[in-house]
C-alpha cells in the first residue's frame, strides 16, 4: 500500500535500503496492515524518545494499523505556545 509520509523537526528516513533515505517528505510503498510502530522501525526513526504520530491529522497510538493512502506525520516531542 502507499503511504504519504511527512517527518518533522529533525526526523528523516534513516533506512539506507529505502529510496527515501535521508528524506523528510515522500511517498512510501509499505506492506499492507503495517502498524505505526512497524513504520517507525522501517524508517529507522530514533526510539530513544516517544514519537507523536498523526494519521490523517489525528494522533494515533503506536499499535494503530495503517491503511492505503494514509497521510502520516511524525514528530519528536515538541512544545511552545
Amino acid at each position: 500500500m502507499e503511504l504519504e509520509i511527512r517527518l518533522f523537526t529533525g526526523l528523516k528516513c534513516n533506512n539506507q535500503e529505502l529510496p527515501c533515505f535521508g528524506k523528510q517528505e515522500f511517498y512510501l510503498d509499505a506492506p499492507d496492515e503495517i502498524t505505526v510502530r512497524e513504520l517507525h522501525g522501517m524508517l529507522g526513526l530514533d526510539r530513544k524518545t516517544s514519537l507523536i504520530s498523526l494519521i490523517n491529522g489525528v494522533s494515533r497510538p503506536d499499535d494503530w494499523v495503517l491503511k492505503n493512502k494514509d497521510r502520516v506525520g511524525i514528530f519528536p516531542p515538541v512544545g511552545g505556545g
Partner: protein
Amino acid sequence: MKIFRVNMTNQTVTAEDVPQELQGFGGRALTSAIVAKEVEPTCHALGPNNKLVFAPGLLSGTTAPSSGRMSVGAKSPLTGTIKESNVGGTASQKLARLGVKAIVIEGQPQGDGFYCLHVDKNGVKLEEDQVLVGKGNYEVVKKLNEKFNEKIGVMTIGQAGERKMLSANISVKDPDGGLRSAGRGGLGAVMGSKKIKYITIDDTDAPGVSVADPEKFKEAARVFAKGLTEHPVTGQGLPTYGTDVLVNIVNEAGGLPTMNFSAGRFKGANKIGGETMHDIIVSRNGKPTHACHPGCVIRCSQVYNDKDGNYVTSGFEYETIWAFGADCCIDDLDIIAQADRICDDIGIDTIETAVTIGVAMEGGVSPFGDGQGMLNLLGEIEKGTYLGRILGNGAEFTGKAFGVTRVPAVKGQAIPAYDPRAVKGIGITYATTTMGADHTAGYSVATNILKVGGDINPLVKEGNIDLSRNLQIATAAVDSTGLCLFVAFCILDNAEAFQAIIDMLNAQYGLSMTADDVTELGKTVLKTERAFNQGAGFTAKHDRLPEFFKRETCPPHDAIWDFTDEEIDSFWNF
C-alpha cells in the same frame, strides 16, 4: 519588601509595607489581588480610577532557573475585564533584588505632558520627560542605554500606548537590548493614560532577595534545573527550534487557523515553521537559542537577522508567525519578521494586531496573502491615521468598522493560534478564562496535541473541560511564582521537578506549603479575578465563543464547536 505607589494626579510617590494578607502573593496573584481590591470594576479603564500594577514573581531575583517573569495587571481597556499580562526581560529580577514587591501607578495628571519613573536602591523617582515622547521602543531603549548604561532595565510604551490604542503593549528590555512584551489586553494604553512613557531600573548595590534556607533552596533549584534540561521539550525542542516549532504539528493536526479562521491547514506552513526558521537563522549568523532573561535554562528565544545579517527581531514567537503568516495567508518569514519588528517598535500586541489584519483582509481592506499590503497597514497604525486608529483598536473594533461577521475574539480579545473547533480543550480556555481569549491561561494544547501531561482527544468534548480547569488553576499559580509558564511542559510529566518548585518557595519564605496549597492559590486567583469581572458586568453569557464557530465547520476535520452552554458553565464548578 515594599509596595511603591505612584500617584499621577498629584505626582507623588510613597512606599508602604506589604500588608499581611498580600505577603504570600507575587506576580499574578498580587496584581489581581490589588486590582480586585482597589479598582472599581465599572471604572473606565483609561480613566483616573484604574490602576496599573507591576509585580515580580515570588521566585524572581533568586537563582531559581527561568524565574525572571513579571506580571502587569490592571482593568483592561480591550476586554473590560481584569488583566494580567506576563513578560520576560530583565525588569522582574532587578525589581525583586531592589526589594520592590509591586509598583502601583494610580490617578491621572492634568495636561498632555509625559513622565518617567526611575527605580534604584533609593526608591522610586517620578520626573517629567518629553524628550522621548513620540519615539518608538527601539529608540527609547537606545537613548536610555546611552543615558545610563547597557545594563539599565527598561519598560516602555511606543506610539500606540501614547495614543491609548487598545492593542498597545508594554515593552521590557531583554538582556541584549531587544524587546519582550507584556502583550495582551492593551495595558500599554493604560500606561499611556497615566502619562508614563518609560520606567528605568538600576539595580546597582541592590540588597538582593533574602532566602530563609539557602542550602535547601540551592538543592531544590538544582533538582528543578535538572528536570528542565532533561525534559525533551524544555531541554531540546524549545532551545533548538523556539516556539515556532509548533507550526507544523498544529497544521498537521488541522488546528492552524488559516485565512481568518476559515480553515485549519495552511499550504505554506512549512515555509514559516520553526525548522525553516532555524535554518534561516543559522545561515545568517543569528542566534537560534537565546534567553529572554538571565538564568533561563529553556532559552526559547532567538535572534533573527535579515539577508544581510542585520538584526531584525528577537523573541520571534509561534503566535506572531502564525498570525501574520497562516491567518493572513503570508508564507514569507522575512515579511513576518518585519511585521514583528514594527509591532515591537510601536508597541502593539502581535496577536491582536495580526488577527485584526486578518479581519481587515476579510473586510476587503487588503487582499489575503499580500505581505507588502500587510506592512502598509502596520504603517497606518504607526502614523496614527484614521485607518491606523481603527486597526490599532483590535480585531473586534475593526470587525465592526468593516462589517465583518467572522471575528475571532472572546470578551473583546483576539483568539490566538489554535482553532477551538479542532483543539477543543483550548476552546474551553478561550471561553472561560477571566482574561478574554488567551491560550496561555490554560494551555490545553499541551495535552490535546503535544501529548504532554497525558493524551486527551482534541476533536471530541470528553475530558476537555476538566483539562482546561486543571490547567487554568495550575497556570494561575505558576504565573504568581515568576517562573516561565513553559516549565509546565516539564512539571506535567515530572513530579520531582514540580515538588522542587514547592521546595524552593518553602526554602525562600520559610514556609511548609504542599501541592494542595499551590492548587488553592491558583483557585483563589481565578475566583478573585472572576469576582472582579462579575462586578464589571460580565456573566456566563460572556463565556462564549463567537457564533461562527458553531455555524461553520473547520477543514480538514470539518470540526465544529459543539459544547452546550451548560457544559461550558460547568467549568466553574470548583
